[in-house]
Each structure stands twice: as C-alpha cells, then as structure tokens.
C-alpha cells in the first residue's frame, strides 16, 4: 500500500503535464467547444508520447492510465482519452484508431465524441457482447450540446454492427467504461473545486473574501472530502484491474458526488459561473455528461449491489 507516486509515475505525470500545458487548459477547451471540435493535436501528442498505451506497456498498467486520464480531464483536454487508454486497452482490443466513442447498442441519445470517432465500441447487453465498429469520421451526425463534449448521433444500424469481442466482453467493457467515467469525473470535479476555490478566495462582498465565510467554507470542505474519496476509489479500482465491484463502487460514488459538485460550485460562484467567460462551465457541464452516460448513478449502484450481495 503506497499512496504516493513512485518516481516513474511522477515522471509520467510530469511529462503529461508538459503536454497539457501546451495542448489543454480551459481557454483552449472554450475555443474548441465553439466549433464542436476535437483536439486532434492533444490526442496525437498523447499517443506519440506513449500515454494512450500506458496501460498496455511493460512496467506500467491501468493505474498509470487512470492517473493520466484524471490529469487530462482536470486540464479540460478535449479528447476521448479514457476510452482509448483505459477502455480499449482494458479490453485488449489492440491499438484502435481514435478518436474512440463508446455507445450502448440502443443509445438513448447523442453519444460523446461520436461525430469525430473512427472507432465505436458498442456495449450490447442483450447479446452479451462488446463490438468494435470501424467508421469514417462524420458517419455520426454532429449534435449540438451544452454538455461540454462534442456529441454525435449514432445510427441504429451502426450500433448493431461491428465485430464481436467474444465471451465476457460485455461485462469487461462495462467495467472499464465505469472506471474511465470514475477517473474522468475525479479529474473534472477536482478542476471544478479548484476553479471555485480560487475564485472565492479573491471575490469580495460585504468587505470580505466570500471564501472566508464559514457557511461557504463548509460546503467546499464537503466537496473536497467527496472528491478526494472519489480519486482514491478510482485509483484503487484501476490498480486492481477494474474488478466489477470496485469500479461500480468508484463510479457510483464519484458520479453521485458529481451532482453535488456541480450544484455547489455553481451556486457558490454566482452569475459569473454560468458564463463562457469563466472557466467553471468547461468542467461543470461535462460532469452532467459523465453522470448520465452508461446508465447513470442508478445503474452503477445496482451493479455494485449485485456484485456484492447478489441479485434478488
């Protein structure tokens, strides 16, 4: 048991940090979002440096991939990194062409990154299989969305096509997807709290920094507890190789926290928090996407319960 980064992990995060300083950050996310764009430069930089395959590289594994996923999310990177670095590698599906989008077999609405995707991973619970669908970018029509990521509509026929990954693949895809959501939510929530804490430390009303009022402090402290716990739960589940109970715990906990992080950081930021001129929305709106995807908190909770205590 060791909660500190070892030197290799630190080196990885330092190197990722350099890339993210160049190719990410809320300002860049705001610019990209204006054109529903995908950050192909960041995607390529992460892939070229080997980070996308870090889980499948000797000496590193899913924990390192989760750490990078968290960092990319915390920097507002407009890339489908978790799907590539955790889900595709976790499935052992090889080095699939990115961007990668993940969809249910009957997607109930627009799918994150689908409009730019060259690979679609499909979770077909009924057929009990995961499928890989190769597609031309633009196959899925772009859908305008307020929720922080480029979105596309996956045609029904496309979601039903593809090459099956074989026995047990549905369960494995479900697990790695949950882990990716937990890691992304963790980084994204941390950014929401960070933006809000900094803003409230300097914004003054009634002659005081708003962040000095105890009523405000306690609410932020409550968020800090949940975000820290989410972080360690996700990292632990990653270290363990995405076991079903562990990822359902990490995802259900983090995504329940996400609702509170969204509500509280917006409430405490006042009107400016709703604008595109303030960084909060870059992260906060994404939290809603992460919260809803893959069945949402209720589905993660039911999965956790079934894993731990069995079904009725």
């Amino acid at each position, binding site marked *: 048991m060791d909660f500190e980064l070892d030197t290799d992990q630190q080196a990885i995060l330092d190197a990722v940090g350099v890339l993210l300083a160049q190719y990410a950050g809320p300002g860049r996310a705001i610019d990209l979002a204006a054109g529903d764009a995908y950050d192909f430069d960041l995607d390529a930089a992460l892939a070229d440096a080997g980070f996308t395959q870090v889980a499948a590289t000797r000496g590193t594994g899913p924990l390192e991939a989760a750490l990078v996923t968290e960092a990319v999310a915390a920097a507002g990177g407009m890339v489908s990194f978790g799907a590539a670095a955790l889900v595709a590698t976790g499935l052992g599906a090889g080095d699939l062409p990115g961007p990668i989008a993940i969809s249910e077999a009957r997607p109930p609405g627009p799918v994150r990154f689908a409009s730019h995707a060259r690979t679609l991973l499909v979770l077909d619970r009924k057929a009990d299989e995961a499928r890989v669908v190769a597609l031309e970018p633009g196959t899925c029509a772009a859908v305008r969305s307020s929720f922080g990521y480029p979105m596309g509509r996956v045609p029904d026929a496309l979601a039903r096509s593809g090459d099956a990954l074989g026995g047990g693949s549905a369960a494995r895809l479900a697990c790695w997807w949950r882990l990716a959501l937990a890691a992304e939510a963790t980084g994204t929530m941390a950014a929401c709290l960070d933006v809000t804490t900094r803003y409230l430390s300097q914004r003054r009303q009634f002659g005081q920094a708003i962040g000095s009022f105890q009523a405000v402090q306690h609410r932020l*402290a409550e968020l800090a507890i949940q975000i820290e716990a989410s972080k360690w739960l996700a990292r632990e589940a990653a270290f363990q190789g995405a076991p079903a109970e562990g990822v359902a715990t990490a995802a*259900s906990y983090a995504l329940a926290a996400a609702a509170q992080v969204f509500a509280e950081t917006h409430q405490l930021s006042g009107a400016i928090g709703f604008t595109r001129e303030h960084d909060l929305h870059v992260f906060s709106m994404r939290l809603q996407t992460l919260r809803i995807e893959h069945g949402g908190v209720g589905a993660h909770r039911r999965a956790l319960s079934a894993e731990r205590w069995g079904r*009725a």
Partner: protein
Amino acid sequence: MEFGWADEDARHRDEILGFLDEVLPGDWEAISKHGPGSDQQAAFSRTFCGEMAARGWLTQHWPEAFGGRDASPWRHAVVGEEMWAIGEPRGAQYMNVNWIGPAIMHFGSDAQKAEHLPRISSGDVLWCQGFSEPEAGSDLAGLRTLAIRDGDDYVVNGTKIWTSYVDNADFIFLLVRTDPDSRRHKGVSVLLCPVDSPGVEVREIPSVVGARYFHEVFFSDARVPASCLLGPEGEGWNVVNYALQYERVGAARYARAARTLDRLAEIARERGLLSDPTVVERLAEARGVCEAARVLTYRVIDERAKGLPPSPHTQLARVAGTRSDTVVANLALDLLGAEAFEYGSYGDANFRLAMTAGVAVGATEVQLNLIASRFLGLPKL
C-alpha cells in the same frame, strides 16, 4: 503508488478473524449491544485483552523496547478494523494501546513507564480520557480544572464532563491547568490520575445513547501525587497533541458500518426486498460511503507508516468515517422499520452506537473548519 496488502498483513487479518471466532463467546452480541462503556464490556475487555496479550498482539505496534513487535501502522489498522467491526471487544482498552501507552513511552519518567506500560500491555487496566469540561468542548483550550502544587501533591479542583468509561476505569488521563494565571494552551499539564484518588467523585449523566456513556467527574480538593505529572509541567498541550497524533483516525467506524451493511443486505434478501431497486440503490449508496471512508483512512495510515507529520487528510477521513456511520444507521432504521423500536434490537443498538459519531472526538464542524483552512487554503474571516 499501489494498493495491495502486504502478504503478512493479509495473513494477519485471517489470524485475527480466526482468533475472534475462537475467543468471542456465543453471547458476544448480547454483551456488545450495551456499548463499550457498559459493565459487561468493561469486564469482558479484561479477559479479551489478556488473550490478545498472550498472543503478543495487544501492543504489537509498540516498539520492541517496550515489549511490542514494531508492527507497522498497516498491521495495526487491520487489527483496528476487525475489532471495531465486531463491536470493539477491547472496550476502552483500545485507547490504552493506541495513544495512552505511546504518550507514556514518550513523556513518562522511568517510574511511570515501569508502573503503567506492563499493565497496559498485559490488558488488565482501564483508562479514560479527561479532557472535556462544561465550558471547554470544541474549544478545549478553554479548560479550567486547576491543579495547584502543594508539597508532593497536586490539589485538583474542577469538573470534567462526558468522560466515557470512567466508572470502570483505574486511571484518568487528566488535562488540567497547573498555572492559574495562564490562558489558552499555556500552563496546561497532564496528570496520570488514579480514579480512586480522594476527592474524586463520578456521576453518570443519563443519556439516550446507552448506559454509562457519559459522566461528570468532580474534583474537590482531590490530592494527586506530583509523581503523576506526565512530561514537564506546563507542557500538557504538547503531550496531548503528541498523544492524539497516534489517534489520527481513531475508531474504524467505516469497518463497522460496512459490516452492518452486509448484514442489512442479508436481511433485505431474506425479506424479499432485493427486488426493490430503491432498497438496492440505497444499499449501494451506503456501501460507497463506507468505501470512501476506508480509502481516506488508508491515505492517513500511509502517512503514518511513512512517519510523515499529521496532515489535513486526517480531517477528511474523520468526517467521512462519521458519514459512514450515519448513513448506515439511518438505512438500518428504514429497512428494519418498527422492529428497531425495541431497546437492544439490532437496529436500535446500531443506531445508538452511530448517533454520536459527528460529535465524539471533535465535532464535524470543527473538522470542516480545518479542511477549509488547511486543505483548501481558504482565507480567514
């Protein structure tokens, strides 16, 4: 960073579980439902801790020089989890081994070490904590109990309150003001005070939590030998801070909450409630809260194992631990319904044990203040 258990610690958990199976009597649940302060549990703790001592486990985390085995904080955490989960059969003695003994090792005279440490490590002495006062709760530095040196004694006057376990205790780890002109953290000292000192009187404060939870301890010209002073006079605040850093995360509340939750899930299954998604989702929600507290606690144990100074992660873990108790206790009442109305029933006993979590050992709001300033770096008013 990695999250695996060392083989030896994982094995030790199995050993402890086997040991509990072997030594806990069939009516342990009936004993434990009265709470750790009860006569039943106090008496049982002497037998039980003796058994642990015989196996070399009671103080295995102590240094070898004091009869321990230098076991790691992780090993100690395994023991803490399994003990608390089953209802803390060590009773009040968990405090002895966790922080009272270590404080005596660090600050005690040779005579004090010789008197107290062997008794603690043999599992046959009960201590209690005399910190809080009527006017000094969250703001402990407001304490007023005076101990004035008179020849070879201190003469103590004042009142301690909430003191758990005192009616069965042999000693009280007593925080007093030895300099009557001092204020706040200065001029404070610790006395290792025999509870049967003349002039010490104990009154139980009846409570809804259970029998023998709370007491007032009155000191009326109580004479305590000066040889009971722990550490230098006036340095009591340091002694307490040192002692309590051993108690950073305290009881493994999440372990008990998680155990209770598993049992509730079993009950839900027996009653056909697992087909109700509301029940299933609440069980899972509570499980998440317990797991959150566990990882935050492990974060603190890791710091401890590395010899790092206490950090605000302690406060995160504490509040999370409190939440796990509360969430599970409420769920237990909701699931068990009216049957929990009966005193001593599972839902009742569990609820009473959990209901004080947010206040005991430092109230939640004070922890949140510390998180805001030390963890988030928010400005002061």
